[in-house]
């Protein structure tokens, strides 16, 4: 299912980006979501799939749609501001999707950063964040450095531990550039994600060393054991430390009733997920004119590009560069999807009276 390399798998169906977005909008409209918010769902899911995060793209239409149908998530955005000061806002999403509440929160951080230089929004009671890069990029597109974090359901033990306690905490940082595309780091804090374990399992291959634990906390290279087990933080104890501190910035700071291992997976349909998110926007004008800042970012990008590549490396990229290129091609030429996914989407659409075509 992964396609982050941008290759079109054999037998894939090319779906126009506009079609994927339109179908997503029609699905969520049919499930009771107002048009503008359904547009945000369509935009996010299409962005994620086009950028190579296939597992956060079209398949989520079915999962999120099912959350609405079971009452686990709300189609109506009743996100409310709980408290605010000049540079910060706390929002309660009241089970609205992160694709909607997260955009509202980042917009507020961007607006306040425009007034005061740097601002934070924290959201509680929302859903899995999808592509964090989408939110960070909202800030970069408005001339600001943006950061977005969430607390994921428990997928890793603490360092040295044996029981799942903490999420692999996806986060993203984006910066505007001048001549170049925005620089966008979009990552999770685990060495490998669930979708990759699935891929190894499907191919019948063993995992590399050091990326997974079995259910008892012992290292494993068996993807089936890994799927029943736990993830390993990237960079060992450093990644673990970051995961703990991201939990402080999200679940702890949001005041959510549930945090840490009480956050549930998006595929658990009998209750809200209770995800928390943290957004930061920084205006470069806190220290210099905007034009000067983006010139400086451009020179950093140029320096990275002119780095002599290691043996076997074609060229040195900045974060987000390759996925932005993949996305551009896909927005123009269509997004490759396995026929089984298209059939599942069409099947789900049929159940709720939304034709795929």
């Amino acid at each position, binding site marked *: 299912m992964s396609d982050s390399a941008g290759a079109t798998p054999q037998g894939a169906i090319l779906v126009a980006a506009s079609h994927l977005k339109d179908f997503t909008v029609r699905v969520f409209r049919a499930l009771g979501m107002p048009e503008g918010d359904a547009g945000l769902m369509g935009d996010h899911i299409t962005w994620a799939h086009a950028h190579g995060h296939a597992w956060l793209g079209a398949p989520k239409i079915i999962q999120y749609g099912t959350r609405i149908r079971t009452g686990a998530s709300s189609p109506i955005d009743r996100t409310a501001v709980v408290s605010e000061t000049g*540079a910060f806002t706390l929002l309660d999403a009241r089970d609205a999707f992160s694709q909607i509440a997260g955009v509202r929160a980042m917009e507020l951080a961007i607006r306040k950063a425009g007034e*005061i230089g*740097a601002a934070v929004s924290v959201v509680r009671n929302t859903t899995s964040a999808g592509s964090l890069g989408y939110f960070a990029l909202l800030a970069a597109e408005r001339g600001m450095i943006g950061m977005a974090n969430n607390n994921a359901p428990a997928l890793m033990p603490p360092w040295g*531990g*044996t029981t799942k306690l903490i999420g692999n905490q996806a986060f993203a940082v984006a*910066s505007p550039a001048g001549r170049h595309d925005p*620089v966008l780091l979009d990552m999770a804090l685990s060495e490998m994600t669930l979708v990759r374990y699935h891929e190894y399992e499907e191919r019948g291959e063993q995992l590399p060393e050091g990326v997974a634990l079995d259910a008892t906390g012992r290292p494993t290279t068996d993807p089936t054991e890994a799927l029943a087990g736990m993830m390993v933080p990237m960079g060992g104890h450093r990644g673990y430390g970051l995961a703990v501190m991201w939990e*402080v910035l999200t679940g*702890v700071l949001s005041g959510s009733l549930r945090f840490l291992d009480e956050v549930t997976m998006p595929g658990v349909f009998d209750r809200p997920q209770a995800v928390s998110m943290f957004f930061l926007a920084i205006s470069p004008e806190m220290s210099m004119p905007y034009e000067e800042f983006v010139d400086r970012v451009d020179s950093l990008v140029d320096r990275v590009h002119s780095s002599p590549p290691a043996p076997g490396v074609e060229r040195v990229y900045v974060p987000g560069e390759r996925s932005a290129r993949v996305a551009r091609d896909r927005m123009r030429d269509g997004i490759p999807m396995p026929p089984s996914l298209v059939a599942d989407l069409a099947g789900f659409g049929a159940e709720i009276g939304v034709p795929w075509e």
Partner: protein
Amino acid sequence: MGMNPTVRLSREQIRSVAFPLLRAIGMPPEDAAITADAMVWNELRGAPGHGLGRIFQILERSRAGGLNLAVDWTPLRETSGTALLDACDGWGVVAGTRAMGIAVDKARDAGVGAVVVRNSDVTSAMGYYPYVAVMAGMVGLAITNSVPLMPPWGGTEVLLGNQAFAIGAPTRDHPPLIFDSSSSAYNMGKMRSAAAHGEKLPPGVALDDTGEETDDAAAALEALRLLPMGGHRGGGLAIMWEVLTGILAGRRSTTEVVGMQELDRTAGVSLYVQAVDPKAFLSYEEFLARVDRLIDQIHSNPPRSGVDRVRVPGESKAGFESEYRARGVPVPADLLERLRALCGDFGLAWPL
């Protein structure tokens, strides 16, 4: 290590050695107090590399011209939530501490305060800056760039520092939660120790001078081309941290930053520090209880075999602190002799 005799000193004794010497070297009183306090804190946390020994570095760098001791710390630009500080080649600990102090003041009113610093000397241990925020009841974040030590991911020539960063949160029943890390897979101290003991490096730690990965610690130290923690992810982090420090601070960045060994050259380091006031979000008591609950849940996780117990980030340093507060900090006797001689040079009475 065990061969070198040590003397146990109290916090007050460490400070009584540091402060007058820093004043005699030429630091103004407030800056000397900040520097001495940070040295005490680092000594207490088992990080003597950031402790009393740095007095010689301050002396040598200021005499050679790399470090400026007379800095006007008025911010260059300010809003009610942010500030830009020019450290004018001043000592990094003073720059970082003052920057976090400003961020905390801003956060009291605005909820969040962010400060960028340009033209700083080396920043020493990053954990101290979030600690400044933690002491004010806030969550603190501090990021720095450094002399280039890492190639960008996939490259072979150094471009980025090892980009140390630290995050801290206050607690009620536990020691403050302070995470302090570099963005490289291995820090320099571990690398030197591996070289000294003839140990092989684990995979993914360093390149040799031909740009190939190496497990030879001596060759890695010679080449000084570190690899990022977590591979391409840490490589990406190092670039974004450069944007928030060297790029955003508006002066020197990447290869323009100079290492502390070059005594007569200013370092040109940048910092980004941020304070977030949890009282803007929820009651302070509730926040502390939540952080404590996070720590308790980590502590109650069953350890894997070979691990005595599961710790939170920074806990081993906090362990030193509780022991050293009670029994004093072991300071090498030869270091104290050198400090005593320095006091003599300045005509100061030896305070111990």
